[in-house]
């Protein structure tokens, strides 16, 4: 299933959750925030929010900045 992730195209398994996606990307859920189709998803909901074909996801984290 094709999704749009951080500006690029990405394949995700059908039925994957945000948690699953993070795991696949080897990212700790405690460090990132996720936007799905322009809406931020609460971290507590990562496990139950499923990704759908064509979703636009932004996965962000904190980096050094001023």
């Amino acid at each position: 299933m094709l999704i749009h992730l951080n500006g690029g195209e990405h394949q995700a398994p059908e039925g994957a959750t945000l948690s699953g996606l993070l795991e696949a990307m080897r990212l700790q859920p405690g460090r990132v925030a996720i936007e799905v189709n322009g809406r931020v998803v609460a971290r507590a909901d990562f496990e139950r929010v499923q990704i759908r074909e064509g979703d636009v996801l932004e996965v962000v984290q904190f980096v050094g900045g001023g």
Partner: protein
Amino acid sequence: MQNDLLTFGGRALASRLIVGTGKYPDMTIARAAILASGAAMVTVAVRRVDLSRREGESILDVLQDAKLAILPNTAGCYTADEAVRTARLAREAGLSELIKLEVIGDQRTLFPDTEGLLQATRVLVKEGFVVLPYTNDDLVVARRLRDAGAAAVMPLAAPIGSGLGIQNPVNLRILIEEIRDVPVIVDAGVGTASDAALAMELGADGILMNTGIAGAGDPVKMARAMRAAVEAGRLAFEAGRIPRKLHASASSPVEGLIR
């Protein structure tokens, strides 16, 4: 303002210096400089995870044990909408309502777009954010930001990263005189210790800086310099300086001179 603390949004910081975490040569120097600055709060940016490479140690990793408050920014946002969206992501990533709000209006100078800034402030305050807006040194704008619920106003001293120091002390002094109920934190443009001292002498409640430390020849030493300078400027402000005079005034007595 309470005596020795910088307070806003229900928080009380033990240092009047807030420092950025960008532009350091490496993470070791970043950590050492940030600790040396004595800052109790640091800014971070919100950026996409880079999927193309294994992420190394992040700035939060190296500061983990330091118990610093994290202040995410919306750097790089050119519209109120972008800034609001970034703020919401930042809240979820950091589990805190604090946001340093930037709505940039010009790419070359990184000057704020005060119209967009005011708009985004209103939205975010309504959503419960503690909004610290990076703004220009215009009193009228500052007053509106405060009225919109900003937890502090953060006027620039000079363009971000320029190191030019306080370009308009008159504007800054007027702004500080009039904005009494929320802190005024000078944000951007401080190049060296005397700039920081001067800003505090004008009555600023705090200073936020990044490049002045991170870009110095020896960032750790400059961090110590800035810490001392902020303290020096604040003490001088509180102490009350002597008036300026065109001519001299002897410091040794004129009586009892031998002739």
